[in-house]
């Protein structure tokens, strides 16, 4: 059994997971209200993964994520305001409104997307780590990707290169058991993903991704190995997506019973229960946390609503480098 955190840290983990959950619940509402358009991939159910891993990262580490990355951006410290404004396609968004839900970028927190080609972020992560290694910087690049990416050639090419060149990449495989609508055992000959990773000569193991404390502990251990040894490490985070793949997905490929079964392991109530049983949080604490989050999200929505639509005359900007950030 993993040691319980101190009260303050326990509450912080809870706050981060709840922020992601409530933020995305609000996104669903705003999607129905047609304020957010395009694809919207929800992380609901998987929050413990981003929250747990992010605890082990330092401000100058880099993050490469997928198109299901609202949670990673929020937990990394990209403001709810700038993420919501991005979802609204406003200039004040973290990607200037040009990216949308799938392409959140933020130079200040070294948050490099927001990559919507499955597996496409892995080579980039290898490159960030290569730059750090050649420059002698002791930094970690955390690269998040789904189980579906494991079937892509870019996964294998990148794992090999990172291990061959001993690059400081923390590979975080968010195994939610489905590549869009195709179950893991229907598309992988070997379903033990940590075993696959280990074949590239790097430390690899599986973690209960529904347990934020387990994820945090594993991430600290893995990140320390990456940092100290300047070599890659692979974590398989076993998790589950409670919502459909995207807002377009009718969810025909799995049963309601299966979803309900996994919901019994919802990482948020699980943490609350443990903290409460240990007398570390009270109902008043929870109410207070919820209130802070509700205020933050309301503020983000207001900010996004009030944001600016980029003038059409600027359409062809940012195709080539303009020499200045936002």
């Amino acid at each position: 059994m993993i040691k319980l955190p101190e009260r303050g840290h326990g509450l912080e983990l809870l706050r981060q997971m709840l922020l992601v959950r409530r933020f995305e619940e609000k996104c669903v509402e705003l999607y129905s209200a047609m304020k957010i358009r395009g694809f919207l991939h929800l992380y609901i159910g998987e929050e413990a993964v981003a929250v747990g891993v992010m605890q082990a990262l330092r401000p100058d580490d880099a993050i490469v994520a997928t198109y299901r990355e609202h949670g990673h951006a929020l937990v990394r410290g990209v403001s709810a305001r700038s993420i919501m404004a991005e979802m609204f396609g406003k200039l004040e968004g973290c990607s200037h409104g040009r990216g949308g839900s799938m392409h959140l970028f933020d130079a200040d927190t070294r948050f490099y997307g927001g990559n919507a080609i499955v597996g496409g972020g892995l080579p980039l992560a290898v490159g960030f780590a290569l730059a750090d290694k050649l420059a002698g910087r002791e930094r970690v690049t955390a690269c998040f990707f789904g189980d579906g990416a494991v079937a892509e050639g870019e996964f294998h090419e990148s794992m090999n290169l990172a291990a061959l060149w001993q690059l400081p990449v923390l590979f975080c495989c968010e195994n939610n058991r489905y590549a869009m609508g195709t179950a893991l055992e229907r598309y992988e000959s070997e379903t033990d993903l940590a075993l696959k990773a280990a074949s590239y000569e790097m430390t690899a193991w599986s973690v209960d991704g529904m347990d934020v404390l387990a994820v945090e502990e594993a991430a600290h251990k893995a990140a320390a190995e990456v940092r100290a040894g300047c070599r890659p490490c692979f974590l398989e985070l076993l998790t589950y997506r409670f919502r459909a793949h995207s807002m377009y997905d009718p969810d025909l490929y799995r049963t309601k019973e299966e979803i309900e079964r996994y919901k019994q392991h919802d990482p948020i109530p699980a943490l609350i229960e443990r903290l409460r049983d240990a007398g570390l949080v009270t109902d008043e604490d929870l109410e207070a946390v919820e209130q802070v989050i509700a205020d933050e999200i309301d503020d983000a929505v207001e900010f996004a609503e009030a944001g600016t639509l980029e003038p059409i005359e600027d359409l062809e900007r940012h195709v080539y480098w303009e020499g200045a950030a936002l």
Partner: protein
Amino acid sequence: MSVSQASSTSTITYREALRAAIRDALLSDERVFLMGEDVGAYGGSFGVSKGLLAEFGPERIRDTPLSESAFVGAGIGAAIGGLRPIVEVMTVNFCLLALDQIMNNAATISHMSGGQFAVPLVIRMTTGAGRQVAAQHSHSLEGWLAHIPGLKLLAPATLPDARGMLGPALQDRNPVLIFEHGGLYNMEGELPADAGAVDIERAAIRRPGADVTLIAYGGTLGTALAAADELIDAGIDAEVIDLRVLRPLDDLVVVESVSRTHRAVIVDEGWRSGSLAAEVSARITEQAFYELDAPVARVCTAEVPIPYPQHLEQAALPQPGTVVAEVRRMVGSGV
């Protein structure tokens, strides 16, 4: 390379000029490194990087696995991460294995991040046919890649460009693709010992003329110049333009030339359909239609995967004779 002391020029090959440019870049900026398949111990599959591993060591001359997507993507990440990578993709055919990275990341990240990240990356690759290496090693896909906003494309066809394009390409904050035509590596000529950076924005007039403009790039520059020589006998004075920069295209030089000669033939080793020649032709028609005395003509590669036998391969490719015939047809059509 042999140095002639009297004139302070040296006899140099295209290959050596490319190598000198890489060496310069490595010496002048410690952020620069070269990576790709067989660039180190083998010396580069076309011999361009021969000797560089011994001089600069394996950290900066990095042999990679046969993983085009991973090492091109790693180049993008390293560029954003503060380095100045030169990535060698052995041939343009193999860049198809890295197209996801080239298009979805290199060309796109700056835009989809709202201008937060520059990608100062150079990707070099060999292009073109003519060496009997058949249908999977003879492509000219510059036209495909020139379709993509966010990329810059260069095609050195001369020794000064082989020597001078890399430096400014590395200074550029955008991903720059440099296409080296496989038929040019052994091209030899004189180059001033102090040859350095060249402009990477403009097309160049390689042979001034008055009667017709031949527009070429990379491997077809020689074809166009040979055709121009043959046309002298027919009393036709051809101007030859080397596009040099394939994206963004320099319309100005082309339109100005066609406005003087009133005729244009584009010589392109790409397949005709959807080619760079098609794009250049459209731009001439859009911008200089009323200057034309004849429809724009194109001499492109036949629409067939490149066959192995020499006679068929040569028949598929633009030849000086074909260009000459096209010009004579154009001029002889009563204009």
